[in-house]
């Protein structure tokens, strides 16, 4: 019974994932083919004048750029199925490797921001809702609304100017100190470079999570079951602990997992501002310099990343919430 439910769930999700990926691959391929950037030119870079047309053709042939878009798509697609994402034009290394190293450093950044914004946002949201209408609520709400309408890159720049340039507490950018061999970089150095971008990402994340949690808890607090709990003499923290938290936790956790796409989007901007060598930064480079294999690789990878977030959220609802656990269809 339970096994059957789990396997149908996985089956359903796998089919959905496959269709999603095919669609994503196709659309991004079409978009890139239609883009005005000439991959050969961006591959060669500024030395374009010194490269003859014969050489250009050779390069194009090497990368398979002389074929029709349809053929290119089929070639790329069939190697993709074999697990080969191709070679990055910028890094001259297999796309999969590039993504892997970059993702690990992004993961540290996004993970920190994700946890911080999740925990702090949840706390703030609950406090605001429990104290609705008081100055604490107004303060938290004001803070959140202000930050929610401030662009990420602007917050990043602001933090950079104050804490790195003026106060000099943190390095100005990059993932590791300049001029130090990568194996000599200590963990402390890594963390130092991580803090400002992570705070930038969290600041924005906190406001979303807090506003959402506040809204959700207010809904819960106006429900009949809270009224009845009050009629039974429960109040304050006890009321929150017994009935509020219980009912607000699931939606909050779920929301946290469905926020992977915003997290990724935020990371692209934050990494750009801080020149943090993560996935976001190379996404911009791959786009600007027409590194088609890398760009497609990132697109696929991020689609999977976001999909997994949503998958976890669904799974939580499906298997943790007693109301659906009993066996309602997806």
């Amino acid at each position, binding site marked *: 019974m339970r096994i059957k439910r789990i396997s149908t769930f996985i089956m359903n999700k796998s089919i959905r994932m496959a269709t999603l990926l095919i669609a994503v691959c196709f659309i991004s391929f079409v978009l890139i083919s239609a883009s005005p950037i000439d991959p050969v030119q961006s591959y060669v870079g500024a030395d374009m004048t010194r490269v003859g047309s014969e050489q250009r053709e050779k390069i194009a042939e090497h990368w398979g750029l002389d074929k029709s878009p349809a053929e290119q798509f089929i070639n790329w697609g069939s190697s993709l199925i074999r697990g080969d994402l191709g070679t990055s034009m910028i890094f001259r290394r297999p796309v999969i490797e590039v993504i892997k190293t970059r993702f690990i450093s992004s993961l540290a950044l996004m993970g920190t921001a994700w946890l911080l914004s999740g925990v702090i946002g949840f706390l703030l949201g609950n406090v605001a809702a429990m104290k609705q209408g008081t100055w604490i609520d107004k303060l938290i709400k004001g803070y959140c609304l202000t930050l929610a309408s401030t662009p990420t890159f602007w917050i990043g720049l602001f933090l950079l100017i104050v804490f790195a340039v003026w106060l000099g507490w943190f390095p100005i950018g990059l993932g590791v100190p300049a001029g130090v061999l990568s194996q000599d970089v200590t963990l402390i150095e890594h963390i130092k470079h991580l803090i400002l971008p992570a705070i930038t990402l969290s600041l924005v994340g906190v406001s979303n999570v807090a506003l959402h949690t506040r809204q959700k808890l207010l809904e819960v607090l106006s429900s009949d079951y809270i009224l009845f709990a009050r009629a039974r003499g429960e109040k304050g923290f006890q009321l929150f602990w017994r009935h509020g938290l219980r009912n607000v936790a699931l939606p909050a956790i779920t929301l946290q997992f469905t926020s992977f796409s915003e997290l990724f989007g935020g990371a692209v901007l934050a990494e750009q501002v801080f020149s943090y060598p993560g996935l976001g930064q190379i996404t911009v480079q791959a786009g600007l310099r027409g590194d088609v294999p890398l760009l497609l690789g990132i697109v696929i990878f991020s689609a999977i990343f976001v999909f997994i977030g949503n998958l976890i959220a669904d799974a939580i609802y499906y298997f943790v919430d007693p*109301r659906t656990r009993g066996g309602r269809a997806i």
Partner: protein
Amino acid sequence: MLSIQKCNEKTIRMNNRAVNNDAKSSNTDRKTVDNSTTPLLNVHDLSVSFTQYTRGLNQKELKVITNLNVSINHGEILAIVGSSGSGKSLLAHAILGILPANVIISGNMDYKGVSLIPKIQAELRGKEIALIPQSVNFLDPLMKVGKQVRSSVNNGNATKIQRNIFQRYNLEDKVDHMYPFQLSGGMTRRILVSTAIANEAQLIIADEPTPGLDTGIVNETIRTFRELADKGCGIMLITHDIETALKIADRIAVFYAGTTVEIAPVEDFSGNGNNLRHPYSKALWKALPHNDFRPIMGHQPPPNRLPKGCLFAPRCDKATVECHDILPKASSLRGGMVRCIHAS
């Protein structure tokens, strides 16, 4: 079988006037409790209005309860009957002090002679005064029902008390671990009743506790209420259904458009209703299937269109000119209360 805990006169801290029959309370019967001259609950001239914002910043007051009087003695079951929207649930919530923030309340509510100000209400809720809510949505959807009943227990072994009550209502062991969504409507009703019984409150306000229950369970519930009352508790039983009220109530209060039009001993609801005092209660009585089965013409006015004089005037066949001008005062008549100029 559960032995109903005695509703002895635990004197509450601020209670100085209530009868102190602790000495006799070990096996209190109705008589000893009835010595009390202070009613358990006395609601006098209660009015409740909602303030609502209409267009822009204009505030409007919506009067949902008007000069309402009602009282319950120790050991008494008072039924409140009235059609939908007559303010029955609001009265219940007003007594418990759980109305929303945008209400204005005037009048007096006394519990054992002590004025029910918010601070006192907060102390009494779930201890001395218990609510059996009207709808099954009042249970926390994410908490097992056994636990919800256990959290109502004030004294003694919560698990044992909860199990005993469930047994009494034919709720099997496995129900303890179920969530509200897994229960049938009837089971949920029984859970709601259980929360109040687990409470050992002295005043139980039951807001429509029996719809959807089969006769066996209805009778069990009624029996429970009677037992509790016999031990000195007061029960306010809110219902649509005069039949159920007749079965167990000592007195019946008839609600109309947010006020009590009549309070009568249950015996007066008999024959062709000649003993009743108010035209509305008479009409209500006559409308019952086993009487004339003649419906009352017209509709109860909604709170935003209350008539100026007697609230029943637009539908009353005895109405005269004065009736449309002034709201009749509540007056005592033949051991009951009535709000009608021409009552006799």
